[in-house]
């Protein structure tokens, strides 16, 4: 049968745009200590900034000609990234839209509706930048057209006990229609969760946000208290700050819009069987790095280092890095620009950031080595692997919650033969003694 391309509601070729939500500097606290020196969306995993993995997925949708980055970082932050995008994809216009006050994910979209609606697009994607997945945007588009949908959300299955940490989707197994949506429910509702990737029809989403704003001013949202679990979490690790001075203008997609859309009956879910992870804490960059490297390996990317006796794929080595042939790297290792890896070094499941030096016979496992750091001879920098299906990067060790991934901030130094295990080390520290299970200020 001949496939007739679907037409947009406005007639003619459907017009699609994309929005990448990047948040702002105050929201990157969980990504400390790495976000102390670089905005999270620009942190490199698998050799590319987190945000560019989103952008790369967008470029695979041929009809997208315009991409907006929405957030409240300073304009200068994304200037170089946008330049790079225009160079590699001259047919796509990329613009940064800066929010001057936190408006919430939906509030921000609404605020910039004129820019988004310019050229009368029929629909647009919304991608959260702190998500690591294969972004099956074309499949979402196909479902959208097939169902004549107003909204499509990307969903994934997680273990039952992890589901309540996310937005939970109840869907009709057959029609894929979203029947019910609850953000971080108290009790179990579903193990199909919101991946933070959406496709909205412009005709449906803006009225929906507008009516949510109207409802808000009529009836302020009930304050919800954090669950006890969230409270203990808060004491151990830096958390995202809740917007304390939150006003009624803050409208979030997750809390305020999606459950209403579920009632509209034109809301569908595309369940991805592919990988999906959130990039919240700094430690989650390690599994994200692994997943993106694996993806690059499966698609036979030319960027990756050639497998050999000492290169267990996938491994990314920046062309300007120097790696001694006796060093054994991989799997899931990214070596940044100008990094120097000495003889007999072992690196596994780790990210080594630019200008770092790893001296001979050192061993680095499940760790992130910050920019310009030095790791001494026979030193051991080690984190603990978390189970593949686990969506957390902290583990309980001897009854104490510790970071599973060891992170050295910018320009840290680990002395020869010293062992650092399950630690987070803030920038510019010299570690001369063995340390484990600590945050080093």
């Amino acid at each position, binding site marked *: 049968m001949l496939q007739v391309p679907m037409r947009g509601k406005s007639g003619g070729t459907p017009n699609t745009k994309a929005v990448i939500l990047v948040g702002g500097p105050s929201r990157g606290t969980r990504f400390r200590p790495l976000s102390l020196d670089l905005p999270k969306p620009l942190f490199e995993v698998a050799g590319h900034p987190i945000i560019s993995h989103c952008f790369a997925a967008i470029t695979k949708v041929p009809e997208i000609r315009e991409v907006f980055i929405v957030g409240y970082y300073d304009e200068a932050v994304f200037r170089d990234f946008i330049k790079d995008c225009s160079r590699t994809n001259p047919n796509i216009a990329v613009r940064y839209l800066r929010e001057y006050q936190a408006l919430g994910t939906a509030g921000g979209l609404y605020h910039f509706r004129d820019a988004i609606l310019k050229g009368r697009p029929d629909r647009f994607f919304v991608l959260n930048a702190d998500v690591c997945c294969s972004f099956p945007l074309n499949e979402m588009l196909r479902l959208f057209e097939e169902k004549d949908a107003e909204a499509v959300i990307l969903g994934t299955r997680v273990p039952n006990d992890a589901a309540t940490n996310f937005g939970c989707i109840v869907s009709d197994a057959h029609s894929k229609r979203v029947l019910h949506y609850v953000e971080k429910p108290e009790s179990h509702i579903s193990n199909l969760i919101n991946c933070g990737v959406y496709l909205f029809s412009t005709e449906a989403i803006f009225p929906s946000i507008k009516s949510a704003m109207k409802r808000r001013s009529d009836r302020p949202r009930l304050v919800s208290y954090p669950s006890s679990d969230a409270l203990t979490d808060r004491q151990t690790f830096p958390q995202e700050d809740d917007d304390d001075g939150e006003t009624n203008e803050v409208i979030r997609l997750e809390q305020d819009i999606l459950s209403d859309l579920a009632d509209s009956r034109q809301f569908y879910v595309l369940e991805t069987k592919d990988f999906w992870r959130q990039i919240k804490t700094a430690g989650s960059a390690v599994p994200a790095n692994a997943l993106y490297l694996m993806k690059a390996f499966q698609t036979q990317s030319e960027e990756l280092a050639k497998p050999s006796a000492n290169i267990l794929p996938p491994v990314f080595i920046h062309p300007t890095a120097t790696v001694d042939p*006796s060093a054994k790297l991989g799997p899931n290792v990214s070596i940044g620009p100008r990094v120097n890896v000495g003889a007999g070094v072992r690196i596994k499941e780790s990210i080594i950031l630019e200008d770092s030096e790893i001296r001979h016979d050192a*061993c680095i496992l499940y760790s992130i080595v910050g920019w310009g750091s030095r790791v001494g001879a026979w030193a051991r920098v080690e984190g603990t692997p978390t189970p593949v299906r686990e969506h957390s990067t902290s583990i309980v060790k001897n009854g104490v919650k510790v970071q599973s991934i060891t992170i050295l901030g910018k320009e840290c130094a680990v002395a020869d033969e010293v*062992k650092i295990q399950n630690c987070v080390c803030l920038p510019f520290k010299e570690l001369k003694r063995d340390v484990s299970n600590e945050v080093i200020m």
Partner: protein
Amino acid sequence: MKALILVGGFGTRLRPLTLTLPKPLVEFGNRPMILHQIEALAAVGVKDIVLAVNYRPEIMTAALQKYEEEYGVNITFSVETEPLGTAGPLKLAEKILGKDDSPFFVLNSDVICDYPFNQLVEFHNSHGNEGTIVVTKVEEPSKYGVIVHKPDHPSRIDRFVEKPVEFVGNRINAGLYILNPSILKRIELRPTSIEQETFPAMVKDGQLHSFDLEGFWMDVGQPKDFLSGTCLYLTSLTKKNSKLLTPASESFVNGGNVMIDPSATIGKNCKIGPNVVIGPNVQIGDGVRLQRCVLLQGCKVKEHAWVKSTIVGWNSTVGRWARLENVSVLGDDVTIGDEVYCNGASVLPHKSIKANVDSPSIIM
């Protein structure tokens, strides 16, 4: 002259090593522990050596036969059917120890030191009384039984004070004695303690003297002390410019006190020392870092591993980039996987360790 070495029981304190070999045969400084004593005894003219054991003498018999010839001594096993304490075995061996009037040595098999047997004999003969205890000075006498001398005599013992709260002296029993055969009359054939029964009786009669030990002394009955004792032993060899040690001119030697059996092989770019003993046929890979450790015969340490304060048992394998420390002890034929970290792991024979041992524990 004659000697009795108190070997005693199963040597459980030195497990997991003693699950494979009886304690006297475990190599200390690349030679069975008991050989250090046999050699020193033979050197002062001892011809009859009694080993007081209460288990598995058959393994030891075969092993010790060749030493009988080598050192020209008769080694007899005195097997206790029930543990007789530290004095009972002397009575059991009365036939040998009392066969003539010459004094005999009694040694605890766990003790390692520079055995000063010549001076000891000389001193013992000079005072003419029944017994002499070798004593060593310690920093913290409160943990031991302390010897107190008669106020009017430099060596005659007045009394023993067990774990003194107040400082009464810092000389403790080093576990080496020379005794006249006459003391055998003081011992009954039953479980009895030489320290708690025989010696106090001798002290009462003014028959017991002390002799100060020069140099190092260590009870190496457990792994932690085995390692400390090894350091002391190697240090004493360095002082004597012993040929047993690997010269510091070797590029891989760091800080000295390194003893390597000639049959061992060492990889490139290793850094070894201080205080390392490497046994026969041991293989050390490239880029290995060793310090304060003992590698027993036939073991293999693979490339880039880091080993400190650890005893690697016979025929064991340490994986690439593995890290062992904090008194880890590997029994016979243990395998530590690549990149594995062991903190105070005590691993029983034939085990394979594939995941980190983060805190001191016994791996059954």
